[in-house]
């Protein structure tokens, strides 16, 4: 019985946990609840993935209303993979959270922070699991609103401005999404993804469907921070509390990429999107622009968190590049990069968060010589940085390998070259941090700091280890990603 209800429990448990955290409003109770729920989330998502890999898609009828009339939760390989990704990151962050949150947030706000974290988890898991376009919008709003709050809780006053900026752009994105869904509903008379995909074939030549595609593309691109719609992202990541930055950077944009994949491949269908429209060219140009321009901007940042945030924009470029290439290897590259970038960037932001906790600042100058005082943390940063660059033996290499192979197969050898060339920009900005942190004399402020506590180091190193282990043996991650890509491309292969 419990196995049948796993899709509902995946979303309901964090939701109930969030309300309980808010009701009790005590930080000592809130953290254990959040930790327990994150761990349960992993168990559920792994069980779902195992079920899907063994027995094909699972359909769950909310409230007993049969799809397509009721809300359907539909788990296939693609979103089971996303569910595992989100819940794994959530569970790795929670042991890290209490010390970092205690250092950065006022005591009376900490319970609310965990409430918002759990709501965000609810929203992201819900977006990933639902098979209903409007339900996805509701969860998109739940995750967005809670992330605005989490960002605004940052102790820097600029956090408020960053949250406001994200609020405006995020709301525009969500509005575009709902306009697109509304147009599709008007044309097909359904909100269920599977049903919509079947009915859209009859009306796809209409202008309304084209407009819907345009609205959805722009709306979701805003949420996933596709260049040049990324302007909300650097400030949001830079000024949010460290734990929120880690969680948002590792999961929020990834789930938006998933939604993008779902609409492009499962609903509109790759043939419609790519054969009849110039979307391939648009996506490729914007992706390459993201890879280069955002990386170059990252080089000139004097704040580590902002630098990593711009690097995220560049990395999102790789993901959309794979969507633009749209063959099996390219799409596998996109999907495997969702996971690979999540663990890499999560490890980097965790290492920076540990430094922020000890030093109290995250500008580059403040980090001079920190490698000598916090060697374990910064060693983690270096290894994760190598993965960001894409050095063989790390997960970054695996993603770029698939992307380059995909580009080569599609005849765009220039793209393969650009993927490699942009990696050199990552060498520069990661190298800058390494140079300042390891090769400079510690400043007065840094000289007195100690290594980060174990509760911060262990989660950081779990992600660092993941970015090496899955880089050396990519059979599992790339295998699942390839099955997901096959499922998405089923229409055109």
């Amino acid at each position, binding site marked *: 019985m419990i196995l049948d209800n796993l899709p*509902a*429990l995946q979303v309901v448990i964090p939701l*109930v946990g*969030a*309300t*309980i955290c*808010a009701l009790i*409003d005590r930080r000592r109770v809130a953290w254990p609840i959040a930790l327990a729920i994150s761990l349960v989330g992993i168990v559920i998502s792994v069980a779902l993935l195992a079920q899907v890999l063994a027995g094909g898609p699972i359909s769950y009828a909310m*409230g*007993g209303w049969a799809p397509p009339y009721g809300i359907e939760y539909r788990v296939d390989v693609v979103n089971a993979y996303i569910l595992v990704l989100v819940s794994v990151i959530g569970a790795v962050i929670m042991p890290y959270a209490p010390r970092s949150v205690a250092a950065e947030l006022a005591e009376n706000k900490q319970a609310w922070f965990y409430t918002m974290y759990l709501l965000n988890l609810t929203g992201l898991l819900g977006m990933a699991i639902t098979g209903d376009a409007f339900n996805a919008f509701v969860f998109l709003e739940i995750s967005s609103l809670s992330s605005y709050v989490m960002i605004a809780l940052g102790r820097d006053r600029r956090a408020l401005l960053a949250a406001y900026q994200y609020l405006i752009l995020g709301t525009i994105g969500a509005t575009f999404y709902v306009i697109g869904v509304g147009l599709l509903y008007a044309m097909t008379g359904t909100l269920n993804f599977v049903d919509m995909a079947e009915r859209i074939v009859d009306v796809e030549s209409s202008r309304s469907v084209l407009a819907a595609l345009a609205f959805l593309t722009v709306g979701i691109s805003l949420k996933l921070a596709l260049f040049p719609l990324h302007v909300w992202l650097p400030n949001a990541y830079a000024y949010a509390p460290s734990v929120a930055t880690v969680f948002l950077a590792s999961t929020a944009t990834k789930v938006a990429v998933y939604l993008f994949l779902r609409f492009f491949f499962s609903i509109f269908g790759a043939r419609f999107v790519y054969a009849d429209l110039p979307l391939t060219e648009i996506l490729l140009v914007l992706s390459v622009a993201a890879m280069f321009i955002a990386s170059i901007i990252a080089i000139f940042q004097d704040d580590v968190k902002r630098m990593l945030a711009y690097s995220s924009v560049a990395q999102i470029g790789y993901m959309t590049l794979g969507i633009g290439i749209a063959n099996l290897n390219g799409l596998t590259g996109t999907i495997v990069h969702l996971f690979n970038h999540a663990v890499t960037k999560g490890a980097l932001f965790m290492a920076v968060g540990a430094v922020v906790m000890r030093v109290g600042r995250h500008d580059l100058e403040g980090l001079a010589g920190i490698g000598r005082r916090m060697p374990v943390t910064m060693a983690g940063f270096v290894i994760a940085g190598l993965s960001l660059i894409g050095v063989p033996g790390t997960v970054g290499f695996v993603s770029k390998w698939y992307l380059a192979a995909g580009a080569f197969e599609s005849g765009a050898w220039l793209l393969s070259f650009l993927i490699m060339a942009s990696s050199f920009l990552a060498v520069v900005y990661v190298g800058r941090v390494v140079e300042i942190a390891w090769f400079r004399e510690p400043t007065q402020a840094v000289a007195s700091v100690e290594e980060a506590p174990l509760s911060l180091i262990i989660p950081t190193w779990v992600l660092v280890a993941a970015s090496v282990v899955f880089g050396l043996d990519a059979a599992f991650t790339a295998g699942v990603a390839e099955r997901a890509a096959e499922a998405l491309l089923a229409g055109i292969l």
Partner: protein
Amino acid sequence: MRLDVILRVISKLLLPFMLVFALYVQFHGDYGPGGGFQAGVIVAAAVILYAIMFGLDAALEAVPVRVVEIMVPLGVLIYAGVGVASLLLGANFLDYDVLGHDHHHAQELGVMLVEIGVLVSVSGTMLAIFYAFAGRGR
């Protein structure tokens, strides 16, 4: 002599009717237009009217901030709790059929319970927003 005596007396007279009307809208929602959201807004409007006429302190005494802060998550918890109850009774999440002895009674009971959750959350949220703005600069 205060000039707003008419306003004060009329609003005092209105308040119970507003609350009863909120309940009417609430329960009418099971069958037709209405429901927890609209009723919640009316309940909150009644308290806000009271605050405007008799001052924020009087309203805070009637409905303290702590109560409002509890109402917001409590409503969601009631809603989700109904879903969990149907899970525990062996059906899908929010499947009301198992809550009562036959289909119609069970569906009505389920809708009524979740709408009470909506009422609690919406009125709590409205008041929380009002208090946050009204309390600025204090």
